[in-house]
């Protein structure tokens, strides 16, 4: 391909008289001013278009190829990208899933003003390039399928040289090409060419270059099939897609005109507007046309072209607009120096013959990072896919996501994908409390008779399991006579200890010298407290009452088997059994979390000394700070405590609440004990820590604690079942009622009706009386007296007199008129249904059942078998579709 010489081809100036020259000069000045005016407008509106350096991009008709143009024209291919793929040297990523590769470039055209791609390309692209001299050059990237048709290299030359602002192939009749030009005197500014028309009579010229020149009539090889718009400037062109011989053109900074190839003599339609740039037609709907000027996008309705339907203001000057080819009426716009593309989804609505102002849903898409985008192009077939190019030359392949709507049912999450599909997913992958609630409800959690069994079901959650253990323990202690019988079934430590009074009912103080405990070197002694109520509290904490009891050994062994070595050792120390603690620590295998450090702890323990100034004590105090295990910390804090101040031990939050309570019960004097318990209770209550129920019991504070737990976790199930099992007093309170209602509601929405029924039955067992009222009564058709009342009496009498004979009743006990007949077997109701199906009959088979709508009925068994095969009522002449009017019976 040769370099093209872009000299202007003006006609030679005619010889003129002086007067004519003067006149002409004036005219030229006038025209010059006009040209200047037009040029400035042109510059302002087209400053980002078509200037060399400003980059444009366009998808080609070949689905994975696109071109860019600016200083040169580049052809690219888009290929799927994989992580393990090495990019070719010419390749670069355009998205996470695709990369582009330069195939070839064409540097022959430097003054590209406009460009379009021949829509009928199979393998190779044929470009039509509008040049600064008004010519339209047809070119390819090297040898191509179009060579046979002799198209590449041809030029379509206008009579007079001027800018070619727009070039556009017809979307349907591909061979038709429109070129929009600047003004030249009275010459036409729109030329329509037919690229097939000049093939046959066209021979290669001597230079080897095809030329089609309309300028010199002598060598005219082809001429435009149509010319429009004399004395006008054409800024932009658009073919209509439906009526494809119609062309819209933005002209003269003041009109959009519509031309029809079939009627070349007149303008079909026109409107006056400044928005003459980027005129574009909606590929899906000929009704709409869009154009822009500066900061405004105008939307036109061809049925009422005088006035724009709506204008869409933009913050910055618009540089490009384009309708999406894949969506019904979606317009994209790009503003100058912007990194985003604005999308407008325009919907027209007609309400009772009145057209509403169209609804415009706007959104902003950001293809890639902050780039100054200069152009974009929609993919013709891939929905919502567009390419963008930035000033830097960076290219992005971006798919606009349609707005997704989403909803969450009882177990499934569903979301939309554009217009065509929905996707759904079981929500079980979200590890949430609702999944556990469902699972536990299926296992009859909360309604199991025995507390321990419920605890068993939640052993994955320690604090829940602890609550059930506490409930179990209080019941056991009550049965053992340790806790007083009374209404308060599940008292907390706080209420148990509330009887202790530092004056009236004080605890016994026990002093024990360390030397008596096997530490002959020790001088001091340890003080602890005993009281009947303290013992009860200790038992609630599962702690042993006596230091030397068998229970003590068992308790520690249990802890050891549960691998709670430090806890066991600490409890041993707190019961003043240092030797035992050392044994436990030494026994601990090395494969625990602590490794062999427990042996070292045992060694440290063996050096125990109560001398406040001893090296041991000082060393320990220093070490405690660095310990992480709460029990070990507590152990040494206890042993190094000065003046019976156990605050550090008692406030060790890592310890189980039971242990903290037990320590307080052992070592705190009466006044401090109550104070500490209240504080601990409030603290745990505020945290919503279920372990705190041990302290609060089923008091009002306990209820507050449950509320807090619910607020924290959303575990309505445990909250409700614990409240209904342990807080009988509060069953009538608003809070508990509300919880119960919520829990029942979620069971219902899971269709777990049986589980809800179980729960209801359990609830009812806590309340006396309140048996739900009878729902249905049977009365005689004739005398209107109740039959069901009689039946109930009969039943009661039967139970009273222990008669085994079943009451048979086939007529009204009052008026002796017969009961209605079963519509199937035609026997009176009250008789046995008999064995018609061959299966063993149950009492239910003889039950009286009927349709709520037509009030025909009979024996349940008969009715059921009838409706297995029928839709309509068994009574002749009754057209009731009893079966279908039944509540929603699921999808067909």
């Amino acid at each position, binding site marked *: 391909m040769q370099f093209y010489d872009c000299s202007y081809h003006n006609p030679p100036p005619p010889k003129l008289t002086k007067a004519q020259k003067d006149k002409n000069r004036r005219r030229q000045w006038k025209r010059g001013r006009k040209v200047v005016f037009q040029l400035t407008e042109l510059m302002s509106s087209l400053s980002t278009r078509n200037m060399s350096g400003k980059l444009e991009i366009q998808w080609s008709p070949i689905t994975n190829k696109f071109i860019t143009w600016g200083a040169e024209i580049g052809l690219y291919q888009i290929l799927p990208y994989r992580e393990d793929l090495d990019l070719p040297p010419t390749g670069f990523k355009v998205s996470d899933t695709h990369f582009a590769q330069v195939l070839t470039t064409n540097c022959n055209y430097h003054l590209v003003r406009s460009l379009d791609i021949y829509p009928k390309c199979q393998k190779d692209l044929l470009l039509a390039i509008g040049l600064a001299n008004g010519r339209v050059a047809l070119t390819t990237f090297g040898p191509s399928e179009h060579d046979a048709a002799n198209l590449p290299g041809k030029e379509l030359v206008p009579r007079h040289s001027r800018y070619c602002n727009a070039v556009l192939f017809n979307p349907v009749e591909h061979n038709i090409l429109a070129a929009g030009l600047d003004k030249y005197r009275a010459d036409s500014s729109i030329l329509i060419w037919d690229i097939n028309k000049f093939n046959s009579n066209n021979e290669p010229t001597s230079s080897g270059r095809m030329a089609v020149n309309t300028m010199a009539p002598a060598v005219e090889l082809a001429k435009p099939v149509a010319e429009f718009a004399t004395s006008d400037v054409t800024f932009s062109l658009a073919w209509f897609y439906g009526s494809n011989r119609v062309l819209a053109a933005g002209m003269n900074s003041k009109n959009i005109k519509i031309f029809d190839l079939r009627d070349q003599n007149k303008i079909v339609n026109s409107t006056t507007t400044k928005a003459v740039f980027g005129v574009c037609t909606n590929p899906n709907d000929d009704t709409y046309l869009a154009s822009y000027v500066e900061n405004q996008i105008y939307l036109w309705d061809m049925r009422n072209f005088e006035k724009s339907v709506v204008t869409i203001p933009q913050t910055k000057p618009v540089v490009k607009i384009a309708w999406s080819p894949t969506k019904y009426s979606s317009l994209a716009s790009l503003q100058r120096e912007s990194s985003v593309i604005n999308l407008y989804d325009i919907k027209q609505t007609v309400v009772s013959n009145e057209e509403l102002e169209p609804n415009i849903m706007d959104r902003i898409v950001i293809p890639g990072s902050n780039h100054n985008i200069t152009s974009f192009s929609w993919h013709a077939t891939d929905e919502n896919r567009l390419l963008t190019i930035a000033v830097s030359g960076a290219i992005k392949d971006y798919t606009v996501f349609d707005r*997704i709507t989403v909803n*969450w049912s009882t177990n499934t999450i569903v979301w939309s994908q554009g217009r065509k599909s929905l996707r759904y997913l079981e929500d079980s992958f979200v590890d949430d409390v609702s999944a556990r609630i469902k699972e536990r409800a299926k296992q009859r959690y909360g309604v199991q008779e025995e507390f321990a069994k419920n605890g068993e079901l939640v052993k994955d959650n320690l604090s829940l399991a602890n609550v059930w253990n506490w409930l179990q323990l209080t019941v056991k202690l009550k049965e053992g006579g340790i806790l007083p019988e009374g209404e308060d079934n599940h008292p907390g430590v706080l209420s148990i200890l509330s009887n202790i009074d530092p004056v009236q009912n004080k605890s016994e103080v026990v002093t024990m010298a360390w030397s008596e405990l096997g530490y002959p070197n020790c001088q001091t002694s340890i003080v602890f407290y005993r009281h009947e109520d303290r013992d009860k509290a200790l038992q609630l904490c599962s702690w042993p009452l006596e230091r030397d009891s068998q229970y003590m050994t068992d308790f520690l062994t249990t802890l050891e088997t549960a691998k709670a070595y430090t806890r066991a050792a600490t409890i041993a120390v707190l019961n003043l059994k240092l030797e035992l603690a050392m044994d436990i620590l030494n026994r601990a295998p090395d494969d625990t979390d602590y490794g062999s450090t427990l042996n070292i702890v045992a060694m440290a323990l063996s050096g125990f000394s109560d001398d406040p100034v001893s090296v041991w004590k000082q060393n320990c105090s220093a070490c405690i700070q660095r310990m992480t295990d709460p029990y070990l910390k507590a152990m040494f804090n206890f042993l190094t405590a000065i003046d019976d101040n156990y605050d550090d031990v008692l406030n060790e939050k890592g310890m189980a609440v039971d242990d903290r309570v037990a320590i307080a019960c052992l070592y705190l004097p009466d006044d401090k004990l109550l104070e500490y318990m209240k504080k601990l209770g409030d603290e745990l209550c505020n945290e919503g820590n279920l372990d705190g129920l041990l302290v609060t019991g089923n008091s009002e504070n306990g209820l507050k604690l449950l509320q807090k737990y619910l607020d924290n976790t959303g575990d309505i199930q445990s909250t409700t079942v614990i409240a209904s099992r342990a807080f009988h007093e509060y069953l009538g309170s608003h809070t508990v009622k509300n919880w119960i209602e919520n829990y029942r509601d979620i069971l219902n929405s899971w269709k777990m009706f049986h589980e809800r029924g179980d729960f209801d039955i359990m609830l009812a067992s806590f309340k006396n009386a309140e048996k739900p009222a009878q729902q249905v009564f049977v009365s005689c058709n004739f005398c209107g007296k109740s039959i069901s009342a009689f039946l109930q009496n009969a039943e009661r009498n039967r139970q009273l007199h222990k008669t085994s004979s079943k009451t048979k009743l086939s007529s009204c006990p009052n008026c002796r008129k017969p009961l209605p007949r079963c519509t199937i077997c035609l026997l009176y109701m009250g008789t046995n249904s008999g064995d018609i199906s061959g299966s063993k009959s149950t009492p239910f088979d003889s039950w009286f059942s009927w349709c709520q709508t037509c009030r025909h009925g009979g024996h349940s068994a008969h009715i059921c078998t009838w409706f297995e095969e029928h839709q309509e009522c068994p009574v002749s002449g009754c057209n009731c579709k009893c079966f279908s009017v039944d509540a929603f019976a699921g*999808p*067909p």
Partner: protein
Amino acid sequence: MCEAQEINAEHKDLIHDVAYDYYGRRMATCSSDHYVKVWDQNSEGKWILTSSWKAHSGSVWKVTWAHPEFGQVLATSSFDRTAAVWEEIVGELPGPGERGTRHWVRRTNLVDSRTSVTDVKFGPKSQGLQLATCSAEGTIRIYEAPDVMNLSQWTLQHEIQCKLPCSCLTWNPSLNRLHPQMIAVGSDDPNPTNGGKVFVYEYNENSRRWIKLETISSLVDPVHDIAFSPNLGRSYHVLAVGTKDVKILNLTPVDDEQSAQSGVTKLDIETIAQFEDHNSLVWRVCWNLNGNVLCSTGDDGSVRMFKMNAINSWKPVAVLKGDSAQLSHAQYNSISITNGSTSIPFSQTARYIKLGSISQSRETPWH
């Protein structure tokens, strides 16, 4: 291992809303193509299209189910300035062994709005059959069917002027009889200088009127969706707002003498979490059954989930994204706002799940 299943919805235009019935076994979709479709889950768990009809003469924005105790009832709202109530009825002449054909009939058309009806929602069932709509002209309307057996009769009970165009509304689903009925609406007015975009209203028994409790002035960006979480006996209400990001607000009723006397709830409103994970406009928010997990969608083309770990502590847990998505890996810009000294740092663990094949990672990032 769980995998997202696909339903071929075949709407001709963008699907705007999808709604489940109370049991989660029926589903309704609505679209810009003016159609509403109803889907039922068969015994194998597959969703089958059972009805499809042209419901409006404009884009259908929202669809919602009534509680099943009122029958099979849907309400829709549309750009055509109306909201409609639909009831499913059993058709004529089913053959033996077949179920009757079902179709939906329009029971009423609510035509009070002069502009697009942007949202419609049934009220909590404890208050009977109530319906709230909101419209682009900024009016909230509360309708009631005095006779639940006759769905063609609805009376306009209340009209609340909101001054800004409304885009979405949500009823507080609390079953607590001590809580008065509450509605929150969002506005998509684009001008930040027009102030707060979320309004909370409450029905006042004394004056028998709906009164505005709060304008949430911290939310000045356009709001696209709003949802109260299922209350489930909690002592506070949680409101999710989809605006330029995902916001989660706690609304705690304050017990004090003043509110007890006036009968007007005083709310303590705190923004508990805000997530900029979508890095773009947030379009929809919805809650799971428990109100512990929030789900949102945004213009980044992803569905994201956020889970409550403890009170006031939320973190992202999962992202579902498009198969062919040209989506860069989401950066977590989550901000935890905790009033007080305890601020639990978010661990930036979220599981990415491809829409095509969902693989579940074994580890659980929480606990």
